[in-house]
């Protein structure tokens, strides 16, 4: 059994002059909740489409569960929603699910009940899909994706159109599904969503991979501390002159000091020798949003 369930190699998609995906190489390990993060138009949905065999790559390759992307056998083992879930408007939510369960060669009304309950649609299950709000359509999409207990889930913006409570519910659900050992590829432009839900993340911009890694690793506390002192101007001069300090800057009403993590405790001793006393010190926390903005420029390009 392979440990990489999704792999793309130099995956490229071009629509005429527009390069939607540019030599994207990704690896999604088994059992991870993997975030595909990028601004609108970054190429996330196109990547999903190529993985599912809906869009033909211009060049490169992709594999799902060890088989070529879009292969029938692989698709039978995955659940996916791409963009806004599209179902048959005249059928009820339950009948839509019954149809898709049927085309998978299964018939299990109890599974339908369980999934409709799980996504909070049991009360509206018999209403026509066309009467559903966007949030309800997303919920039905999740139920559809979970049909047949798939080992891999590809979810494209699954909380799009949901109210805050609904978003929180869905994120909890995705986390629970991840804890059960499923691999989940979650595409989103919502940084906090990826930060809250995912173990690993790939950030793409303009179809190109900007960075890929564990969320915890990417957001590892920076070797920076923020401190306030009894005399910031004098403290800045002392810190700038110190060999242990890599950099020190004044920001707003505090100082931001870059120093090796294990040596940050020496700052107070260093300053107190010059009768400058630290009144406040804290490691600088970086959110994924901040990280994302740091590594992508205004145009979504890598800032190097």
């Amino acid at each position, binding site marked *: 059994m392979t440990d990489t369930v999704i792999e793309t190699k130099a995956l490229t998609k071009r629509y005429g002059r527009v390069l939607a995906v540019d030599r994207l190489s990704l690896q999604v390990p088994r059992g991870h909740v993997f975030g595909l993060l990028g601004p609108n138009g970054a190429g996330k949905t196109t990547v999903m*489409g190529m993985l599912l065999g809906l869009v033909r790559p211009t060049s490169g390759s992709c594999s799902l569960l060890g088989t070529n992307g879009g292969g029938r056998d692989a*698709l039978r083992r995955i659940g996916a929603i791409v963009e*806004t879930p599209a179902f048959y*408007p005249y059928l009820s939510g339950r*009948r839509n699910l019954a149809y898709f369960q049927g085309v998978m060669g299964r018939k299990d009304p109890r599974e339908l009940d369980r999934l409709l309950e799980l996504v909070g649609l049991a009360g509206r299950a018999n209403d026509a899909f066309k009467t559903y709000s966007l949030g309800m359509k997303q919920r039905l999409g999740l139920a559809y994706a979970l049909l047949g207990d798939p080992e891999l889930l590809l979810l494209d913006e699954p909380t799009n159109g949901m109210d805050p409570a609904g978003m929180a519910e869905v994120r909890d659900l995705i986390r629970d599904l991840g804890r059960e050992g499923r691999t989940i590829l979650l595409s989103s432009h919502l940084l906090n969503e990826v930060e809250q839900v995912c173990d690993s993340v790939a950030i793409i911009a303009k179809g190109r991979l900007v960075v890929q890694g564990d969320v915890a690793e990417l957001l590892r506390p920076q070797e920076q501390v923020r401190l306030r002192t009894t005399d910031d101007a004098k403290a800045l001069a002392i810190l700038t002159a110190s060999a242990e300090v890599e950099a020190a800057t004044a920001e707003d009403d505090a100082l931001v000091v870059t120093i090796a993590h294990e040596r940050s405790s020496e700052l107070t001793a260093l300053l107190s020798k010059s009768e400058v006393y630290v009144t406040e010190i804290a490691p600088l926390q970086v959110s994924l949003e901040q990280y994302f903005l740091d590594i992508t420029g205004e145009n979504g390009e890598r800032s190097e």
Partner: protein
Amino acid sequence: MIADVLSLTRWEWFKLRHRWMPWILLAITAALVQVNFWVTYTLFRNGSEVSVGEGGGSSDVTVSTSDQFLEMFAFPTSLANGLIAGRGFGAILVMILAASLIGSEYGWGALRTVLTKGTGRWRLLASKLLLLTGVSAGALIVATAALGVSSVIALTTLDSNWVAASADWTGLGIGFGKAVYGMLPYVALAVFAAVVTSSTGAAIGISLGYYFAESILLGVLMQFDWFERIDVFILGQAVSGWMESSAGGMSFGQASLPDATQSFFVLTGYMVVLSGAAFWLFQRREVAGAKGE
């Protein structure tokens, strides 16, 4: 593999039977056949000379005597006439249904949802074609059965026997099979148009446009002698040639119609080419989201 297609066909039927459209089209088919029947009946009762057939087509036959008329209204000839009339109207309506069955999948964006479950593209299209064949046959049966009831009512009012002296039930069965087969090239045409355009409206426009443009063009081209040598290759002419002598004992044949065997091969050719092209394109085309139709 065949089991997969049959299973998918069953679920396509599940979807279709919950739509209003097929039932409305079926009601229209039955109503048009009834109108055709009762108008003919009324004209005869008023002493007029009447024509039966598809209405204006080359296979129409003029009936002017009482005996001919009663024969025409008795079983199984009345049912065979129903097949001819029903096939004519049915071909139009089944094209609308076929265009909608494929085009709406693109319009609603549901095609992407179906394919994502690993149904397989050619299996899905094959199941839709199989369903359309079944629906065409079913619609003809319903329209013909409704006509049978009308026939009984008409003959009862005329105090005539329900069954004709020259009853040819085998011919009726063959006629039914031929009528269904004669509708399939139109199904293939509409399916091809729907796959090419990814749109219900455009597919209906193209397939109906072809159907009517061909009829108009046929009327013009029939004036030329050279056209007789190639007319079998025109879909409408091939269908008429194929349906010749299929009216359960009543011959509607005319010398100008193409040979039935030749017509069969032409119809098969249309079906193979149009559905083959549809499969090829359906297999390769990228599937986008909903088009909002």
